[in-house]
């Protein structure tokens, strides 16, 4: 258990540190393209992926760095990808919105809102056909919960009785659009019943809550019990001053408080992880910056396996 906690903390810290650094670097103008940061939502990816292994596949979103890190994609390769380098996860061809590593069961961040859920029906189907006991997990935002592709996938997963888990990451907004307006039901989880599966709501700032709900869903799925929809809610704290963010709204602080109070992990152990992660990110950035960009020879390769 200590190992699990340590690992969970490392994942969350890595995501946070990665995103904060990308944020800084992006501001300098050195990172090209569109970047969406996962900072603040770490408990979701970490809490879910803690239950997953090589049999399992996930689909991320446009806000996908966290999903990638939690599923074990190499952090240095990710950073290099964001910089458009040849050493990146996608050799510079994908960028932030398309980081993927199929060898790790990470089917890619996705530039299309609602792009992932149908794909995950497929990976879950493959696991079922191959009797691997694997599951498929689709992460999607509150905005994506109104996309027809997502809604169809929920139904299909039930109809096919798939080992699939749908994680609705409800951070209250789709760009400028409030989910309280765009989602006609009170909760996204309320839609689960209409698609014949259990719907669960958890506090997205609480790693343990996510972890528990995901654990149940993954167990049910592996056991042939079918899909689950989990709504991970990141309820925003309104009217607060900057810097005045309560610990309850930060998954890392909350995690630290709980495991240290419970005596499960010591402060210094957590600090050590922080330091290791800081170094990893530092190295990732400097290696990315030093890495070569792809060249003319790379432009027309990798379109087809054979053409």
């Amino acid at each position, binding site marked *: 258990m200590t190992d699990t906690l340590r690992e969970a903390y490392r994942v969350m810290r890595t995501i946070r540190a990665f995103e904060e650094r990308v944020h800084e670097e992006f501001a300098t103008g050195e990172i090209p393209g569109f970047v969406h940061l996962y900072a603040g939502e770490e408990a979701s990816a970490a809490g879910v992926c803690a239950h997953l292994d090589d049999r399992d596949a996930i689909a991320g979103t446009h806000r996908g760095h966290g999903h990638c890190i939690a599923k074990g994609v190499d952090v240095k390769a990710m950073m290099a990808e964001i910089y458009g380098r040849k050493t990146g996860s996608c050799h510079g061809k994908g960028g932030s919105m398309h980081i993927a590593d199929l060898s790790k069961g990470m089917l890619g961040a996705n530039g*299309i809102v609602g792009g992932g859920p149908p794909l995950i029906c*497929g990976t879950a189907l493959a696991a079922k056909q191959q009797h691997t006991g694997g599951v498929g997990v689709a992460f999607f935002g509150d905005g994506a919960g109104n996309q027809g592709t997502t809604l169809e996938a929920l139904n299909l997963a039930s109809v096919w009785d798939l080992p699939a888990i749908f994680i609705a990451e409800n951070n209250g907004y789709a760009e400028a659009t409030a989910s309280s307006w765009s989602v006609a039901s009170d909760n996204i989880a309320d839609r689960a019943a209409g698609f014949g599966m259990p719907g669960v709501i958890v506090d997205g700032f609480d790693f343990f809550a996510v972890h528990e709900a995901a654990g149940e869903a993954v167990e049910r799925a592996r056991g042939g019990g079918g899909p689950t929809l989990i709504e991970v809610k990141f309820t925003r704290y309104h009217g607060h001053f900057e810097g005045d963010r309560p610990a309850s709204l930060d998954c890392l602080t909350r995690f630290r408080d709980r495991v240290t109070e419970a005596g499960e992990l010591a402060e210094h152990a957590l600090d050590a992880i922080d330091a290791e992660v800081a170094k990893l990110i530092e190295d990732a950035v400097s290696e990315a910056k030093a890495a070569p960009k792809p060249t003319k020879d790379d432009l027309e390769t990798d379109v087809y396996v054979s053409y």
Partner: protein
Amino acid sequence: MARTISYRQAITEALVQEMARDESVIVMGEDNAGGPGVTKGLFHEFPGRVLGTPISESAFVGAAIGAATRGQRPVAELVFIDFMGVCFDQIFNQAAKFRYMFGGNASTPVVIRTMYGAGLRAAAQHSQCLYPIFTHVPGLKVVVPSSPYEAKGLLIQAIRDDDPVIFCEHKALYDTSGDVPEDSYTIPFGEANVVRDGGDVTIVAFGRMVAVAEQAADELESNGIEAEVIDPRTTSPLDTDTILESVENTGRLVVVDEASPRCNLATDVSALVAKEAFGALRAPIEMVTPPHTPVPFSDALEDLYIPDAQKVVNAAKAVVEYRR
């Protein structure tokens, strides 16, 4: 040993042989993928490997694509190609782009079988060709078999192929017959079939239009004009060499495409030749296509809409008789 079987039977046979050969091949679609009836019987023959679906094309086509990235070789059936509009994102933004976007670290061996074309009075939303749209998309391979022999060999190739393939079956061809070997065989993609040799004019035709072109060639022959008829068999990849060589020889080109006339295969092949074989060209390039309208319902109009042999003959004569 070859026997005479139908286009429909040829497709079924390809599916059966591939499913028997390779456990990872699965079939999915509405009514157990039962659209044009080619999968009849498969459901019982391969238990658990023929999956019915709700009417949720994005979800199940997407599922086929997702499964393809994880070791399956799914064959999904989109009953009519006209339904691509409710699931196009999964095809062109997901399946088609995975390999490139992911830096070569993905392959997506999915086949989407689908029925296209006019002629059955099925009206505007059930009669389109649309293969030019798929051809436009890098990352997709597009197959337009013109006969039972082509259908079987190309479908087996499609299933074994490691890239996403849009397999377009013309609805008016299902009941046509032809010689087809019983044994399994593949026809490579990007290799045109020279259906008929001739030195006066090259006619490139796709799918059902190959038979129309052949009919025209017969008629032309009785007028003393020798037409070379080329069936590219796949629109992507396209066998440009065979087309160019033929035009180098004939100096004249007619392209016959049942798809809507703008940005279609007729323009694609014309442009190819106007660029690469200009020096050999002795006449304008003619295109025989339907008009720029949706497909009409009434038989009276649909028969006028679809390119027929007479139009091909006229086009061929025009280019042969052309004098600067």
